């Protein structure tokens, strides 16, 4: 039988904000992500597991990244925050429908 086998190497960048992601720190996070997009990264995992606080300015950075990554043929997945309070806000704002939610950073 004819079976063709081809390989794809893909690079995923895991970005983990470990402090408040709010209106004050969002520009720093945005800058960091812009640099990665400029490098050609299109597959992102944003690891929110250790993010203690996330406001709408922080969420805006995630949505903006999602749009740009998808435009470039990639995607953004979120690792669930450990904080239940943050988790509930992601449900309230339906971010769990917009992003693929992961329980933990995928092993490789």
């Amino acid at each position, binding site marked *: 039988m004819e079976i063709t086998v081809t390989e794809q190497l893909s690079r995923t960048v895991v970005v983990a904000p470990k402090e*408040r992601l*709010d*209106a004050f720190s969002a520009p720093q996070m945005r800058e960091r992500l812009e640099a990665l997009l400029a490098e050609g990264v299109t597959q992102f995992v944003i690891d929110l597991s250790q993010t203690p*606080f996330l*406001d*709408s300015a922080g969420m805006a950075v995630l*949505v903006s990244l999602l749009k740009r990554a998808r435009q470039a043929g990639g995607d953004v997945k979120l690792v669930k925050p450990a*904080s239940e309070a943050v988790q509930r*806000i992601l449900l309230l*704002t339906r971010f769990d429908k917009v992003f693929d939610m992961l329980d933990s950073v995928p092993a490789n």
Partner: protein
Amino acid sequence: MTTATGKPLQIVIPATLEALRQVSAKIEDYIAQIDGVEEPEIVTYNIVLAVQELCTNIVKHGYAGESGKIAVDLELAEAPLRLIISVRDNAPHIFDKAGWAAPNLDEPKEHGLGIWLIQQLMDEVDYQPAPGNNRWRLVKQIPQRA
């Protein structure tokens, strides 16, 4: 049932995004003093987030780059136990309540979640607009463990 022990508290900060972190920290401390709060992490987080959204708007849209101050008053009321948060600013711009519309959450948006979140997270939201003297009043019931 327990009784609330908090005295009223006023926080005054410069209208910068960085200074808002002091507001969050002080609200956390204030709620931590109250005995018998049910799901304290969730309640505290939701109040801190609502005030954060409100003050961010004052810095970004109210003062819009100008310098100024924001005053946040915290006060407890009883029966049922609730936290009353008053926020005052002297910003030149006012929030146009009539022109506001709820966001469509089915499409991911980069803007327009702040006011909606405040409404979702608080029990009462009252706004008295006046250029140079805006007043907000937020009320949130503090659920008590049985």
